[in-house]
């Protein structure tokens, strides 16, 4: 069984388009995250949600809008895509919000903006 899944795995699109990435976890976790991994493999948190509520927004441009319809899903919508948005986006989840928690990562979505 897949613990954290993301769709699509690959996304190629033109500048200026709007796209969405979906994430689902079947671990029963309360907390979900979005990370961005750039071309140099550097990983940085973008958002964190707990019980469907936003708790961390790491100064991400407001073109990025996460949405959590329920605790098992955290989707990422990106408006007006720019070249610099090209990256691998990872979804993750954890049992709670404490600093000791293990985060479980999805397989990633490789976004290429042309």
């Amino acid at each position, binding site marked *: 069984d897949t613990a954290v899944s993301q769709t699509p795995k690959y996304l190629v699109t033109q500048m200026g388009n709007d796209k969405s990435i979906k994430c689902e976890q079947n671990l029963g976790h309360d907390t979900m995250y979005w990370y961005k991994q750039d071309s140099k493999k550097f990983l940085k948190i973008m958002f964190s949600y707990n019980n469907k509520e936003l708790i961390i927004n790491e100064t991400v441009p407001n073109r990025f809008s996460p949405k959590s319809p329920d605790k098992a899903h955290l989707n990422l919508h990106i408006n007006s895509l720019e070249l610099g948005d090209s990256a691998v986006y990872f979804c*993750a989840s*954890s049992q709670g919000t404490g600093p000791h928690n293990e985060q479980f990562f999805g397989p990633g979505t490789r976004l290429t903006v042309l």
Partner: protein
Amino acid sequence: AQSVTQLDSQVPVFEEAPVELRCNYSSSVSVYLFWYVQYPNQGLQLLLKYLSGSTLVKGINGFEAEFNKSQTSFHLRKPSVHISDTAEYFCAVSETIQGAQKLVFGQGTRLTINP
């Protein structure tokens, strides 16, 4: 804010040789440290974590790490590597921001195992 430095961007090693991947963190009163592994075209997977207690932490796939408070280090080691250990390895420190967990990752170390 916490920070993590992985001192080597790439480490090439021969199969069955020992390996050490270095990680230093910024000092803090309480520190929670993690090592994650990313195999090619996959997501991250937890190798091990240090929360408290024994400074020597054992993880999956024969890896272990030692927490050294005086040197603010958390180096990852394996006594004998296999081809299948070829991957990107990330050290991370966990902090609490606005009541939420935030993982701050190092730059990653690419471990390449040569036959």
